């Protein structure tokens, strides 16, 4: 697996090529990219992402390992930016590589749900009218339930 937390921008296309080139005998790759969205008032100057460095990488690696195990994936890539971003910047990407598409789609969906609610990142919006921490979405927490296995 490849897990990267970085201040600098990344090129999602380049990352996908790098990820594909390191696979052997797969049939499917699914990627998801999160992009900085402007506010409805279109006054977003920056999105600042804070994290808990001692916990972030271990949490992401644990999520990736769970996905690899559950869907028998060949590989997982998670890249997440921290620091100051501007509208249209890529925030993060997830890529999953598998023999077949269903495993790749489902595991990418699983990773995004967990990344949203369990990885220690916090977003703050800076606008021309002040700043505010982004609130967690109650639905994001609820969607985790669909991945419970009993």
């Amino acid at each position: 697996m490849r897990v990267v937390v970085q201040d600098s921008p990344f090129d999602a296309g380049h990352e996908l090529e790098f990820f594909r080139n390191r696979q052997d005998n797969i049939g499917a790759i699914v990627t998801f990219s999160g992009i900085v969205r402007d506010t409805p008032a279109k006054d977003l100057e920056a999105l600042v992402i804070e994290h808990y460095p001692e916990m972030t990488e271990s949490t992401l690696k644990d999520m990736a390992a769970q996905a690899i195990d559950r869907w028998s994936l060949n590989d997982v890539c998670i890249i997440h930016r921290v620091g100051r971003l501007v509208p249209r910047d890529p925030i993060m990407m997830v890529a999953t590589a598998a023999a077949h598409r269903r495993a790749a789609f489902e595991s990418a969906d699983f990773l995004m749900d967990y990344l949203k609610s369990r990885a220690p990142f916090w977003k703050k919006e800076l606008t021309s009218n002040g700043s505010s921490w982004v609130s967690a979405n109650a639905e994001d927490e609820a969607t985790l339930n669909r991945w419970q296995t009993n």
Partner: protein
Amino acid sequence: MDILYFAWVRERIGIPRETVETQARTVLELVNELKQREPRYEAAFSDLSALKVALDQSLSDFDADIDGVCEIAFFPPMTGG
């Protein structure tokens, strides 16, 4: 032990981390000790349902035992992705 604060919890308390000596046995006892100190702690911990806690970098809860724990972090629900 070291206590870390993130996002608006860090802003309300005014520092990102500190080291404290405590006799508290649980997270909740520690929070109540901190709240006695100064209004800024009361402001940060006024609604525990809006907060999460991690013990030695693993998510936990406010009833958890903190005996032997080196690092406690308090933060709002995460907003990654």
